[in-house]
Each structure stands twice: as structure tokens, then as C-alpha cells.
């Protein structure tokens, strides 16, 4: 938790490079002069690689960016949303954000200091900020948001990651103090996410359920014009946007674009056709089968990044008759899953097997998880046999007259269905009969909370350990949160406690490793695969830089030819 301008010289260099004012060679020379190692420079260059291709020429004002999106839109209410969408990066800002190298940089806060005992963090808030409605955005307004998240009646499903916070105080307009129950180095990872975006709480209270549907009040560079889930979200430039102090954003003033229109395109080939045809300018999430085709199109630039996401499935600990409360049975089922083949076939190798809960790209990733969950049908069979399951006449396992059969619910979407089919077929090879039920959105989550045998789910979050804690924390079992498998594993809870009380980066990384190992071994859920993130833009789009550390790009710099 160092100061705001942690590495100002490097940052300046990176800004210039990203801005196209430095060549690659000049950048490397400058960076070497600053004493950075070659590997670090390489990392920075790689992180910026998506950026360099389209940042030339003088920005032009005007135009509407049309961006395709592979998911449905969630309500634009940070406190109670499914996951946040690209529009959050246009209408809201948060206290701090990440630069393309993963460092914390100012956004609403201009600087911060952590107390030496680790029990509080003091943020300096930029003065004179306003919400889009004109209401003042000061420390008190931010406190209202954080208090709202802490208040269970506002329904934030993320309460369990805010537990270490004792209180938020606003002694004056430009000072915000977050007091902690114990050291909580992870705090920054939390407040940088879209769920902690700063909104006008008074307006949220006034609109009630309609907040984020019919209106929002944030401080981002664009104002919401329309939100139609399943179809589109559109925003227009906020003419009174005061500008940004975030270092890596080039355009310090109002955005260039008149507006942005995001289109939900759930049909996979349509996403590829529309960007090739120029019906959309940019695209998140082309289907994996279409990537080669898009890469071959000279009108397009395809950016490939690691994604902080993962597919997993739960095994309900309450199904004791099937032994899901027995770690050996869970491990046996996990050994039946051939993750490498799934990555090859379904992701066209654009991803990686998950032997633990998170991707290998994470700072705290440990290779030690790879000793678990390897594909081994023989081992799976012998473990099941040791647990008392014997093959019946049709090949399905039986124990005391009980067949090994259970239901997995998935959200009705073609990739989920394929993955569900593969898991079904692979479990069958060890004599387990899986029924896959594909449910629409209105049914899926209701069933997920109604004690289902198994739930397949996909998470997406800029710091994956935080989101994974939600699915495995025992406080979220029994309908209290998304621990749908009702997993209660003391080692996992202990690791979460360690993660949430880490006092520094080293402590955080160590706790992260402990957490991964606990999950890989104990399997409160069974991790399956992680996919890469793909972004496509047409060549007439400039200043659009998806990066590794933010789920979506910022739109301040974007302009169209």
C-alpha cells in the first residue's frame, strides 16, 4: 500500500508509449535507463500490445461506438448486480483503479496512505467533484455507498468480503477513512471493482428497484440513456464531465465519443459476422471457433488476454447418500474430468485447465495445485470402488441399492451446454450417471438456491480469489449466499480468514496459495477450465485498450476515424 504515484517515472513512460508518442525502441531505452529489468519491460510491452496498434493520429470528436457483447446486461446498480458490464466503465468511477500493469492508480481518490498498524486507510478525495445529477461527490457521498454495501438490507451479495471493514468515516469533504477490524491488504482489490463504484445513494434510495434500470447517477464520462437487457445499453457523453486524473488515461477532459451503444449478441456466429461486416466497431468475446477467422481479417485487430474467470461445478455436501460430503468421492469425480482435452476441443486451446480455483496468470497462482485433479480414470474408479460403489449391470455404479445418479443445473447457453455434455460423458466413463438440466435465467438461480445436487457456474472478476471465496465460504451456505454446494470445509474457511487478514502483498500471496491448495485438495467445488479473453476492434477505432487488470476498457480515450 504505497502512495498514489508509486512509480511515476515508469508510469509517464508507459503513458507516452501507449499514447504513441514513443516508439517501442525509445520506450525500452527509457525503461532501461530507469533501471527496470528486461523481463519487466517485456511484461509492460505485452500488457500494452493491444494498445499500440490503434493510437495514432489526432483524436476526432464525435460518433457513436457500437460494441458487441457476448453476455446479457446486468442492472446498472453496483450494489446489487449480477456482474458488471462494460457500461459500468462509462457511467461510473471508483475510488482507485488499475493501470495496464496492475498498479493502483487514482480515480476519485487522488492519493492514499495506509496506517502503519494496517488498521486504517485514509483516502484523499478530489475536491469539487459532482455526480451527473449535480449532487456533490464528496467523502460523505462515498461513505454512504460503502455503508450501503455493509447494510444487509440493501441486498449486496458480496457482504462477506466487506466483513473486515469496521467503519467508513468522512471527517471532511476530501478525506475518507476506512477503518479495519484487522489488517486487510486485499481492500484495494475490492474497492477497485465495479461493485464498489461510487453512486449517488440518495438517488438510489429515491428510485428503489428502478435504480440502474430507468436511471443511474454516477460520475463517469457518459450518462445512461437506455438500458434494455437482452438487447442494448446506450450512453451519451456527459457534457459536464470534470475530467480525470488517472495517469494512464490520455484524454484528461471530456470523452471524444458522442455516445456508446453496447449490443448483447448471444448468437456466436452473429458476433463474428457483425464485426466483419462493420455492423459493430468493437467486440468482446467472439466465439472460440471464430477466432482464427477474425485474426485473418485485415480490417480487424484481435487482442488476446488472460481472463480472470473460471468454470466450475459444485457437488452438494448434503447429498450424503452419494458421498458428496466425502472428499474422496469429490476427488474421484474430479479425476474423471479430462480438462486438457476440454480446453483443446471447446476453447480451441485458448485457455487452460483449472486444477485449482484460479488461472495461472494470477499473482498468487501456485503450481502446487497441479498435483491434484489430474485426469486419471483408473484412480477415479478405484477411489469410487473404495468408497463402496460397484458397477451395476448397465455400468452405472450402485451402492446399497442406490444408483450413482444426480442432476447438474446449467444456464441455457450453448457453451454451457457443450461443457455440460462433456462432463456428463466423462463422468459416465467412471460409471456416474449425470443428468444435465439446462435452465433459463428465470429458473436457474431459483433452483441454484433450492439445494440442487450440482450447479455449473462461470465466474468473472478482476481478482478471482475474492469472488471464489463467495462460492466456498461456509457463511454463504444454506441459501445465505452463492455457496450452492453447501460446502463447509474448515481448511477453506481458514484460508479465507488468512486472505482477508493479510497485512501486505507477501501475506496476501501466501494466503492466496493456501486458499488455492485448500480448494484443489478439498474440492468445495470442482474447478474445470479457464478461458482467455478476446477483444476485437475494427481499424477505425482508436484509443480502445482492453487490458488484463480491468475487466473492460475505459472509453475516455476512444475515438473513431
Amino acid at each position, binding site marked *: 500500500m504505497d502512495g498514489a504515484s508509486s512509480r511515476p517515472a515508469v508510469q509517464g513512460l508507459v503513458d507516452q508509449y501507449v499514447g504513441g508518442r514513443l516508439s517501442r525502441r525509445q520506450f525500452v531505452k527509457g525503461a532501461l535507463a530507469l533501471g527496470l529489468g528486461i523481463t519487466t519491460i517485456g511484461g509492460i510491452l505485452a500488457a500494452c500490445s493491444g494498445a499500440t496498434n490503434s493510437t495514432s493520429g489526432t483524436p476526432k470528436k464525435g460518433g457513436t461506438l457500437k460494441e458487441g457483447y457476448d453476455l446479457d446486461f446486468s442492472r446498472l446498480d453496483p450494489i446489487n448486480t449480477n456482474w458488471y458490464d462494460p457500461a459500468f466503465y462509462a457511467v461510473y468511477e471508483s475510488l482507485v483503479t488499475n493501470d495496464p500493469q496492475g498498479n493502483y492508480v487514482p480515480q476519485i481518490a487522488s492519493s492514499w496512505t495506509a496506517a502503519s498498524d494496517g488498521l486504517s486507510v485514509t483516502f484523499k478525495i478530489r475536491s469539487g467533484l459532482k455526480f451527473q445529477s449535480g449532487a456533490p461527490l464528496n467523502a460523505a457521498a462515498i461513505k454512504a455507498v460503502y455503508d450501503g454495501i455493509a447494510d444487509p438490507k440493501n441486498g449486496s*451479495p458480496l457482504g462477506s468480503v466487506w466483513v473486515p471493514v469496521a467503519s467508513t468515516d468522512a471527517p471532511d469533504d476530501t478525506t475518507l477513512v476506512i477503518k479495519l477490524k484487522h489488517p486487510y491488504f486485499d481492500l484495494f482489490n475490492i474497492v477497485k471493482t465495479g461493485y464498489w463504484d461510487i453512486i449517488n445513494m440518495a438517488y438510489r434510495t429515491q428510485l428503489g428497484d428502478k435504480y440502474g434500470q430507468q436511471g443511474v447517477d454516477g460520475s463517469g464520462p457518459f450518462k445512461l440513456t437506455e438500458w434494455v437487457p437482452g438487447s442494448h445499453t446506450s450512453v451519451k457523453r456527459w457534457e459536464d464531465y470534470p475530467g480525470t486524473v488517472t495517469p494512464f488515461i490520455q484524454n484528461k477532459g471530456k470523452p471524444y465519443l458522442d455516445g456508446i451503444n453496447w*449490443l448483447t449478441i448471444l448468437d456466436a456466429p452473429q458476433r463474428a459476422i457483425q464485426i466483419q461486416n462493420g455492423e459493430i466497431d468493437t467486440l468482446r468475446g467472439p466465439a472460440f471457433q471464430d477466432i482464427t477467422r477474425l485474426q485473418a481479417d485485415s480490417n480487424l485487430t484481435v487482442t488476446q488476454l488472460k481472463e480472470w474467470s473460471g468454470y466450475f461445478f459444485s457437488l452438494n455436501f448434503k447429498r450424503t447418500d452419494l458421498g458428496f460430503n466425502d472428499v474422496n468421492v469429490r476427488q474421484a469425480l474430479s479425476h474423471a474430468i479430462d480438462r486438457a482435452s476440454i480446453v483443446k476441443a471447446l476453447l480451441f486451446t485458448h485457455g487452460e485447465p483449472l486444477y485449482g480455483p484460479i488461472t495461472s496468470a494470477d499473482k498468487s497462482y501456485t503450481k502446487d495445485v497441479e498435483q491434484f485433479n489430474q485426469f486419471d480414470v483408473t484412480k477415479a474408479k478405484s477411489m469410487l470402488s473404495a468408497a463402496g460403489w460397484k458397477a451395476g449391470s448397465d455400468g452405472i455404479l450402485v451402492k446399497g441399492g442406490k444408483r450413482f445418479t444426480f442432476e447438474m443445473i446449467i444456464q441455457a447457453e450453448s457453451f454451457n451446454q457443450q461443457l455440460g455434455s462433456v462432463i456428463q460423458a466423462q463422468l459416465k466413463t467412471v460409471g456416474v450417471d449425470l443428468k444435465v438440466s439446462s435452465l433459463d435465467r428465470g429458473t436457474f*438461480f431459483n433452483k441454484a438456491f433450492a439445494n440442487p445436487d450440482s450447479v455449473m457456474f462461470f465466474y468473472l472478476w478482476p481478482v478471482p480469489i475474492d469472488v471464489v471465496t463467495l462460492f466456498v465460504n461456509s457463511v454463504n451456505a444454506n441459501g445465505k449466499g452463492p455457496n450452492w454446494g453447501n460446502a463447509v470445509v474448515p481448511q477453506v474457511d481458514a484460508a479465507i480468514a488468512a486472505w482477508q487478514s493479510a497485512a501486505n502483498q507477501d501475506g496476501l500471496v501466501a494466503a492466496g496459495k493456501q486458499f488455492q491448495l485448500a480448494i484443489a485438495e478439498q474440492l468445495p467445488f470442482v474447478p474445470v477450465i479457464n478461458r482467455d479473453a478476446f477483444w476485437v476492434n475494427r481499424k477505425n477505432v482508436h484509443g480502445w485498450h482492453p487490458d488484463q487488470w480491468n475487466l473492460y476498457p475505459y472509453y475516455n480515450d476512444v475515438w473513431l476515424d
Partner: protein
Amino acid sequence: MASYLARRTGYMVLILAISSVVIFYALRSAPGGPSGGGVLSPLSSQEIRQAYEKRLGLDQPIYTQYFIYLGHIATGDLGTSLVNGTPITELLQTHARNSLILGLTALLVSYLIAIPLGVLAAVKRNTWVDQLAMGGAILGMGIPNFWLALILVYFFSLRLGLLPSAGCCDPPQLIMPALVLAAEGTAVTMRMTRSSMLEHLRDDFVRALRAKGLPEWQVIIRHVLRNALIPVISLTGLRLGWLVGYALIVETIFRWPGVGYLLVDSIIRRDYPVAQFFSLLLILFVLLANWFADIAYGLANPRIRVA
């Protein structure tokens, strides 16, 4: 005629009332609920979800909810979407307009192709023209519209880059959905036009007109076609139900924000107010179309009225 009209209308109201009960029950007794699809984070705890459903009155018995709903309708309050809070009156304006644009274009396309070709096939009966037209018609009846949509998108958007593959509401975006929606109707109308023409070509008055020395095209267009069109028009009324059904699929594929698209989406999300209103609207629409077809047919054909 007046009593027939009154009976027909009363009947329509009765069907609408029954349908509204059936739809209300079907939607609300279906598994799932709106808490997973709109306002709440789907990850919300059971407690928060139940509080939300209580706030919407969903904890009450369905018949109570039904009467509350009727009360609101009676005062002109159609409600708002649970998913994005838009008043249904507003949704009605935009989506009904989009659907009408698509539907009417499809009907127009279908008539412009089907009637001339149907007439031609009847006049040139048993020639290659006839066989080609009827072969095309029977193919048109056999191609599932969603598959036709895939093929058209593949050629016109991907291969040729001529037409946008989806979306609304520029004229080029209308072309493919309208063609796909029109396909089946065109085939059926063409067959109907041909057979109706053939029936009337045998009529005595046709022979008389020809004997009077009227040019053949005048006989066909002004006299035969005029009579032959009556069943074709009434067929349209009967086929509107199909058109509405196909529109659900075509609008979904082409992301054309019409009533069908909205309806499928609202059912998936359990957006009860929207789903029940627009289901009923579609049924009303089909009933009205049948009603007009009946009345028109009755007017044109006094013998029918008795039955």
C-alpha cells in the same frame, strides 16, 4: 347480421377472458421467478429474494394476484416491466410498431410475390411456369424459417456482405427478417390463389365475357381475380395466427425488437407483467384478425352467415 356480429364479439371477449386466466396461471405456476432475472443480483440470499417477491405481491395466492391485476387494468394501469422498469404502455408503442412494420412488410412481400405468380400458374396451368411456381411453393412450405434465416445470413451478410445480419431499425435490417417471415405465407397464398383462380376460370360468366370479346387479361385481372381473391383475403385472416407464431422465432433470430422478441425474452426472465400482457395482446390480435376474416367472408358470401 347484427346478432351474428354481437355473438361473434361476445364470443371473442369470452375467449380473451379465459385466455387471460390460463396465461396468468401458467406463468405464475411455472418454476422460477423474476428474482433471478432482473432487479436482484442472482447471487442474492434467499432472504432478499423472498423479500423482493413479497414486495411484488407474489407471495399471495394466484387468484388474489389475478384480481389485483384486473383491478389495475380496469384503472388503465398496465404495469411496468420488472426487468427494466419501463412502463408497458411505452413498450407497447415501440415493440408493437416494430412488429407491425415487420409483419406488414412481410405480408406485402408475400402478396406481391404470391398473387402474380399464383395467377400466372393458374393461367398457364400444367406448363413449366406452373410447375416451377408450385414447386417453389411446396419448397417454401417445407423450409423451416429459422433455417432459411441461417442460410440467408450466411450468403447475404457473410459471403456477400450486402445486408446487415441483425438488429433494428434501418431499412436494410428489415429485408432479411421480412423475407424469412414472408416465405411460408407466400407459398401458401400462391397455392391458394392458383386453386381459387382455377375454380373461377371454369365459371360460366367467364365464358360469357370471353364470348363478348373482352381481352383475355381483362377477363382474368378484372373479373376472375377479383372473385378469386375473396378466399385468399380470408385466408390471410386465418393465417395471421401463424404469422404471429413465426414472428416469435424470426424476431428472436434477427434481434428485431418486436412483440415476439419481447415476449420470448419476458417469459425466460419471468417478467410477469410484460409476459402476460403481450401474450394476451397477441391472442387478441389473432382473434380480431379471425373476426375480421369471418365478417368479411360473411359479407361477401351471405350463405356462410347461416352456419
